[in-house]
């Protein structure tokens, strides 16, 4: 019996390494290829990429796209927090009956593909253009909807881990207003949830292409796509840089999540 089990363990180990090596090659090859592709020729692609003034002079569209994406990411995270945190806390405290509805609405964007959403958003953005102009920053409105499912799940998990009601009642009993309750009592307690929601938002917004390109606005991905038509090397280099950034963001997030789980 023990021999059978030992044999099975050995077989599993062999299978494990075969699978890991084969899939590892499949997943690492494109990344390695990107490095190789961008270091061909005179190899000044990477030095240009870190030299911001030079970069924006050579590829003004790309520089615009990078700036637009960073602003969008920041503003979307902000708008998401302002919209979601007070509502989630409020619903938990005062309107528990509404929670399923709020949850349903927040998860709804998961079942609506971005390409479908953009079809419906086109007329809405005709009005946005009319009132606010055609700035790329107006994409923040659509992006906040896109990140709702991920942000809601993160924040809802954070709120579930603390006793919001007791905290809020204690603060109210000591004379705190609702604003103080939100900013100084609830928010510090769900710090890590807020942080992970914000990280996810930033990662998602930095990778968004569908809505920006079809509503004729610019961001990083639109700029990369445009650049691909004129300078393949540079566009691959920026892709790799954006990818590494997203990797780092999400890896920090997942390690952070692990630590939170472990300490609980």
């Amino acid at each position, binding site marked *: 019996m023990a021999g059978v089990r030992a044999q099975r363990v050995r077989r599993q180990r062999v299978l494990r390494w075969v699978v890991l090596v084969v899939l590892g090659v499949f997943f690492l090859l494109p990344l390695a290829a990107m490095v190789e592709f961008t270091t061909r020729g005179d190899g000044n692609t990477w030095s240009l990429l870190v030299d911001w003034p030079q970069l924006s002079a050579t590829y003004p569209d790309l520089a615009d796209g990078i700036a637009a994406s960073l602003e969008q990411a920041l503003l979307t995270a902000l708008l998401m927090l302002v919209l979601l945190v007070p509502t989630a806390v409020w619903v938990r405290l005062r309107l528990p009956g509404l929670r399923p509805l709020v949850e349903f609405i927040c998860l709804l964007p998961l079942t609506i593909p971005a390409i479908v959403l953009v079809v419906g958003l086109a007329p809405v953005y005709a009005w946005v253009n009319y009132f606010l102009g055609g700035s790329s920053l107006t994409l923040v409105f*659509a992006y906040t909807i896109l990140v709702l499912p991920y942000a809601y799940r993160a924040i809802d998990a954070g709120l579930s881990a603390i006793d919001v009601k007791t905290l809020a009642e204690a603060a109210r009993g000591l004379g705190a207003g609702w604003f103080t309750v939100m900013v100084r009592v609830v928010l510090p307690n769900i710090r890590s949830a807020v942080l992970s929601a914000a990280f996810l938002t930033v990662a998602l917004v930095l990778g968004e292409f569908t809505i920006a390109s079809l509503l004729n606005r610019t961001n990083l*991905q639109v700029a990369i796509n445009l650049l691909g038509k004129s300078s393949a090397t540079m566009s691959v280099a920026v892709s790799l840089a954006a990818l590494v950034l997203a990797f780092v963001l999400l890896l920090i997030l997942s390690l952070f999540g692990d630590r939170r789980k472990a300490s609980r």
Partner: protein
Amino acid sequence: MTSIPTRVPRGRLRITQVRSLLGTVPFFAYVAIFLVIPTLVVAIGAFTGDGGFTFSNVTALGDAYVLDAFGRSILLSAVSALIGAVLGAVLAYVLVTAKPDGLLRRVVTAASGVLAQFGGVTLAFAFLATIGLSGFVTVFLRDHLGTDIYANGVWLFELPGLMLVYTYFQIPLMVIVFLPALDGIKPQWREATESLGGSTWHYWTRVAGPLLAPAFLGSALLLFANAFSAYATAAALVSQGSPIVPLQIRGALTSEVVLGQQNLGKAMALGMVVVVAVVMTLYALLQRRTAKWLG
């Protein structure tokens, strides 16, 4: 949308309730403008023509080129979901048999979380750098082994290319969604099978297989929906023609519309929503069945 009762509130309870509801007004108003209205625009627009209500947009979905696009979209999603599900399940199984808190498992799950999100333009360019016409692998194979992977035509920008590229984010997604089900398998079940005289074959076909089947199918459906709604990768890779539905919708949105077909894009969008909704409903049903044993 904000459903504030219009009746005159009586008593303190009603007043506080109305006041409570006011706190959710910003959220519901925002969602109404940027989520509910767009959804309604698609749903109503699909049935609207020049002279009001019409079925002509929806019947136009029966046109050969639209049907072909849906067919290719479904084929692409099904093949990439199947490959992704099988390879992802094998990878997940390999992780489960490794040490539960080991470095291997943590690194692969973290990497899967990142790669499952990796799509769009950057992924398209990654594959262009790999197996594009002057890509790393293409050049290497041509110069060193004398094989031309594009001897029978450049397939990267067509359906087979999309299938390969989509697999890149489908496998990691499968690992993420299938791993919890595999973790639910208890070692006691295998021991029970063995003590009753069952072989490994019996265990997989009679015990673990049937238990995992709903979870596997459900995960595969999720992968299908994921590929079906993907747009950015295909848009960056395919610049000529519109083989799949999302690209057809791009065509409908960006090009000059044919008279009388302004709303065909909305009808195709509605068609996509219907497909995704059906798939996700099946997924939810299977998920419930999975939870019975492996929850």
